[in-house]
């Protein structure tokens, strides 16, 4: 890709990057929220709900994201769920990420020492207070590394949204690649961009871990 071409395509690439971020960060937030809801549902919703959710989560985790996206985008209308590409992409990321977050957070809740909850009981905290003040923050600290990892995974999965014509980075850059026949350069640029984003996410995660280092032990 020569420099003139690069300059010409810069606005389009920037727009693609923006869409990628708009899919990724809200998708990540929704996934974490959905994951938390599912994890709580499995833990406190009784045996039947636990079994049903385990089955559903297994199905989501046992199928490729691409296939889920097809089902959502092309299959949705058959059950009255007509979504535009961005909506389908966001919902898809939330469901896919949520399934993983649910398992990560469930493990996090289970890893909080029982004694910390007993101390809360003895201090007179209600179950809701114990959840909000003890279990949630301790779980969040425990899952931070796995959570950062999930953030990176979801960021890279946004590339799949190009398949359902979400105009994100991959779609924009591969588009430029095909119109200029500079496929290799386009792919290279794409890889570097995702890699830089991954490194930035990792650095942010490490910074957070350093900040809570005083809290990690004990």
């Amino acid at each position, binding site marked *: 890709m020569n420099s003139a071409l690069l300059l010409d395509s810069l606005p389009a690439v920037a727009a693609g990057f923006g869409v990628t971020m708009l899919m990724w960060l809200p998708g990540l937030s929704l996934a974490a929220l959905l994951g938390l809801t599912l994890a709580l549902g499995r833990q406190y919703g009784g045996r039947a709900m636990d079994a049903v959710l385990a089955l559903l989560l297994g199905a989501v985790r046992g199928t490729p994201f691409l296939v889920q996206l097809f089902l959502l985008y092309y299959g949705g209308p058959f059950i009255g769920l007509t979504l535009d590409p961005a909506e389908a992409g966001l919902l898809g990321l939330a469901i896919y990420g949520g399934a993983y977050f649910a398992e990560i957070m469930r493990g996090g809740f289970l890893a909080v*020492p029982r*004694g*910390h909850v*007993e*101390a*809360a*009981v*003895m*201090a*007179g*905290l209600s179950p809701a*207070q114990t959840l909000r*003040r*003890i279990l949630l*923050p*301790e779980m969040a*600290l425990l899952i931070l590394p796995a959570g950062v990892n999930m953030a990176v995974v979801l960021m890279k999965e946004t590339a799949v949204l190009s398949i359902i014509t979400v105009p994100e980075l991959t779609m924009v850059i591969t588009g430029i690649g095909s119109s200029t026949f500079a496929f290799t350069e386009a792919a290279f640029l794409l890889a570097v961009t995702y890699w830089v984003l991954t490194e930035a996410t990792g650095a942010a995660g490490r910074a957070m871990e350093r900040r*809570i280092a*005083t*809290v*990690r*032990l*004990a």
Partner: protein
Amino acid sequence: MTAPALRMQGVGKSFGAHRVLDGITLDARQGEVTCLIGPSGSGKSTLLRCMAFLEQHDTGWIEVLGQPLGFAPGPSGQRLRLPTAEVARVRRGIGMVFQQFNLWPHMTALGNVMEALRLVLRLPRAEAEARARANLARVDLANRAGHYPAQLSGGQQQRVAIARALALAPKIMLFDEPTSSLDPELTGEVLRVMRRLAEDGMTMVVVTHEIGFAAQVAQHLVFLEEGRIALDGTPAEVFRRPWPPRLAGFLEGYLDRGAALLAD
């Protein structure tokens, strides 16, 4: 003799087929230190946890400050499970200190002590903080208020845990092997705080392997074995020679380690 602060009658508890507690009848009297000693697996920690209803006894009755804990006799003598709110209310008379400290790691020492003052007693922030600081001072940790548990030694963590329990002004303090995860030096600082608490007249029930502490501080000593009370009396009575074979077997381990205190 003073009134019992905590009274157990025929308390039994099984884990599966294993009978951990078998018909325990025991009073912890007001203002006294009751120490529970015995070999590992004798049921002493389970007994203490029953006193806090962290374990539910499956037979017998427990009364805390005159009120039934967990179960009460129904009209025809059957066991009625009391509502959770009622259990929580009776539990308010009890403070508990755990072997593993169980401080909340994401809160400072001050935060740990303030938490229930704010959330449960609903004190205004300034008042809660003053009370929390006063209780940290009581365990000689006024200067560690801003430290997180991970920044404190085991002995300091345990003293924060004691302050956390004391801040809620319990009438009875339960200690579940409070020094078992500490080295001897740190054990000393925790035992000093407990001794001071005893001198102040706190009613205490202590599960401990610190036989010296039990011999010197307790007014009431209970030797448990296989879920039953084998010996029950003042330390002088329990340790009176000749020792019954089981007590002798238990104490020999301590004498081996140089607990000369007991060699009357």
